[in-house]
């Protein structure tokens, strides 16, 4: 497969390298050329110039030696002449070895001829001087020797000139070469850069353009448009990528189709489930717009899903109480103690329907709230059952009252001997009847109270009271009984304690129950019951402590449930109804308070309950 981008890039880079290398070689070639021309000057012309100069020097010395021979008759002159002849010949030979210029050979030949004649005439001069006298010698010198000397010198000088001119010429040549080299190198460099740029642009458009195209299409795919296809032209990597891309989009498309089908199936399933749920469901988004209303909610609220979808909750469902919960659930992060379910009553035609409203936030992965699910549980049936239960309890307790009266009264009359004397055995039996009659009486009235409290039928008659007054009122009936058992009852309340919000009779009932229990479980002789009150920021804590045998842990949890009784030491019931604490709990809770127990077996029990302090008036 032609990996042509790779190939193209490689070729382009190789091309650029070749051009660069050529440029470098061209530069090197030019440097060499320059170097050679300098070398040439040095070798060819400079040596000739030196030789010519030395030849002139040697000639002049020979001329001086001649003159001194002629006029001073110097014996050394001949020696000097010979010595310089040798020198002249040496330099001439050097010049002859270094013929470089056109016409140089002829000049040197001329010098050689002239010098040969000059030497011959020198010897003739010496002969003339010694044979014909100084006068003749002088004439000969001036007429024959001196012109030859001058001519030779002239020739040597012209040799020097020739070479010097050549040097200048060569220098000019070198300058020209250097200039040319500079220009050509610059030109090649410029061309290289230009070529490089063109190639880079070409490559860029060849590679980047398809990539840009690809990016565009991938963006579209990420937006969910899987129909994107790229053009496949050529057989380079880009087109390979393009065809792979096209395969990928095809796969994505079919995958999406599959997913959509699966999702649709799941959605239909979920919708069917939601629709079939008998509790009403309303889903709202973070802006409280309605996203979903199921059939049960449609029926309960008298709306149609189609008409309310995407509209604000309050606009269509005018139940502010429900909306309040939805709103407060959103702010739940800040405040924790909000009501998250309430009971509401809606009119459905003629009948009233009761619903328990429960709101649950929908959170995404990060835990941010993206909406709310409001569940409307139809509790009409439960309410009805509850009503039936209270009616039942009420009827039963009512029906019990008449027989309880006759049994109690009859036993009482018999015991008092009103209808004649009775034996000790009879008395004992009658007392048992009376005692259990009493218990039944209490049970019936407690059951009725509890049933009413549970159904919320008993309204608390809340007012501000001094807790001490309630305590004293509740404890008063127990003093005699306590004295009989040799048990102390102490009340420990601060003088400036705040007033509490309470229903006097109900809280008094709770205290009566707690103190009565305490008294029942404290030992004969040495029993101790303490009632303490502590005040916190907004609540009052009432504690009833005894030093009885305490309550085993397994009982502590369920002691506030109905019909739970702790048996006494003998394993017998102690005469309570098993409803006292359950009623106490209902009463305290109806006041918004809590009731709990702390106890260690053997160490007595402490019952606590809280009440709200009234705002100071």
């Amino acid at each position, binding site marked *: 497969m032609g990996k042509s981008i790779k190939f193209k890039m490689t070729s382009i880079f190789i091309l650029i390298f070749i051009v660069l290398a050529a440029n470098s070689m061209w530069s090197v070639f030019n440097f060499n050329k320059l170097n050679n021309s300098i070398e040439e000057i040095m070798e060819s012309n400079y040596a000739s110039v030196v030789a010519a100069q030395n030849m002139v020097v040697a000639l002049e010395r020979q001329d001086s030696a001649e003159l001194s021979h002629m006029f001073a008759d110097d014996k050394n002159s001949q020696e000097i002449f010979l010595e310089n002849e040798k020198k002249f010949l040496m330099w001439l030979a050097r010049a002859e070895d270094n013929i470089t210029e056109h016409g140089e050979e002829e000049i040197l030949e001329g010098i050689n001829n002239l010098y040969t004649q000059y030497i011959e005439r020198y010897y003739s001069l010496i002969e003339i001087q010694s044979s014909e006298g100084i006068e003749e010698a002088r004439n000969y010198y001036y007429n024959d020797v001196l012109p030859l000397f001058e001519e030779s010198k002239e020739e040597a000088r012209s040799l020097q000139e020739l070479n010097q001119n050549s040097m200048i010429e060569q220098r000019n040549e070198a300058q020209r070469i250097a200039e040319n080299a500079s220009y050509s190198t610059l030109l090649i460099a410029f061309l290289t850069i230009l070529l490089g740029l063109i190639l880079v642009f070409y490559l860029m458009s060849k590679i980047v353009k398809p990539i840009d195209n690809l990016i565009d299409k991938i963006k579209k795919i990420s937006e969910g448009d899987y129909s994107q296809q790229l053009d496949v032209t050529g057989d380079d990597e880009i087109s390979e990528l393009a065809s792979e891309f096209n395969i990928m989009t095809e796969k994505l498309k079919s995958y999406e189709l599959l997913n959509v089908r699966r999702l649709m199936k799941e959605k239909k399933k979920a919708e069917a489930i939601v629709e079939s749920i008998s509790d009403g469901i309303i889903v709202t988004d973070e802006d409280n717009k309605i996203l979903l209303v199921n059939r049960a909610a449609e029926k309960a609220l008298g709306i149609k899903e189609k008409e309310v979808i995407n509209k604000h909750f309050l606009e269509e469902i005018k139940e502010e109480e429900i909306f309040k919960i939805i709103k407060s659930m959103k702010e739940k992060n800040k405040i924790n103690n909000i009501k998250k379910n309430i009971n509401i009553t809606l009119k459905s035609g003629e009948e009233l329907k009761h619903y328990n409203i429960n709101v649950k936030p929908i959170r995404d992965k990060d835990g941010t709230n993206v909406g709310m699910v409001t569940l409307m549980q139809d509790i009409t049936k439960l309410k009805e059952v509850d009503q039936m239960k209270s009616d039942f309890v009420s009827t039963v307790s009512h029906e019990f009252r008449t027989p309880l*009266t006759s049994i109690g*009264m009859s036993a009482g*009359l018999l015991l008092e001997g009103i209808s004649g004397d009775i034996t000790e055995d009879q008395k004992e039996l009658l007392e048992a009847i009376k005692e259990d009659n009493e218990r039944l009486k209490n049970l019936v*009235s407690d059951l009725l109270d509890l049933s009413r409290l549970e159904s919320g039928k008993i309204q608390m008659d809340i007012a501000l009271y001094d807790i001490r007054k309630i305590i004293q009122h509740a404890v008063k009936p127990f003093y005699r009984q306590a004295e009989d058992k040799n048990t102390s009852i102490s009340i420990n309340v601060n003088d400036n304690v705040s007033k509490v919000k309470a229903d006097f009779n109900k809280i008094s009932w709770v205290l009566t129950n707690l103190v009565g229990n305490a008294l029942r479980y404290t030992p004969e002789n040495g029993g101790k019951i303490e009632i303490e009150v502590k005040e916190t920021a907004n609540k009052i804590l009432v504690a009833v402590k005894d030093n009885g045998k305490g309550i085993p842990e397994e009982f502590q949890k369920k002691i506030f449930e109905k019909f739970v009784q702790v048996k006494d030491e003998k394993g017998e019931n102690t005469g309570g109804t098993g409803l006292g604490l359950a009623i106490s709990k209902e009463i305290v809770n109806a006041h918004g308070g809590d009731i709990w127990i702390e106890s260690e077996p053997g160490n007595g029990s402490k019952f606590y309950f809280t009440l709200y302090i009234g705002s100071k008036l």
Partner: protein
Amino acid sequence: MKKVLIIEDEKNIVLPLKMFLMKKEYDVRVSRDGIEGIKLAQEYMPDIILLDILLPKMNGYLVCEALKEEMDTKNIPVIFISAKTQEKDIKKAFEVGGQEYIIKPFVHEDIEKVLKKYFEEE
């Protein structure tokens, strides 16, 4: 001897109640239904009436109302004796002119206490 009229249909209540009151030396008459009760009250003119609410023929409230409308009987104290414990029932008893309300189950001491209260005031 003080005269007590019991208007009550439950014989098991009437029996010990009548026995107790007679032992305490009251003159006791008993009526088993509302209409007969009113009639008996007008004839007998008791010093006090013990009146149940759930009665045959006419309920205790109506009986009380009727008695309080008649000049002869309107000043006779009416003591309701009933198993009804709801506040509204008790309230109604006072609205129709009842003087006392004793909730069943009661014991003979409860009755004695109330009777003493009315007879000692005189």
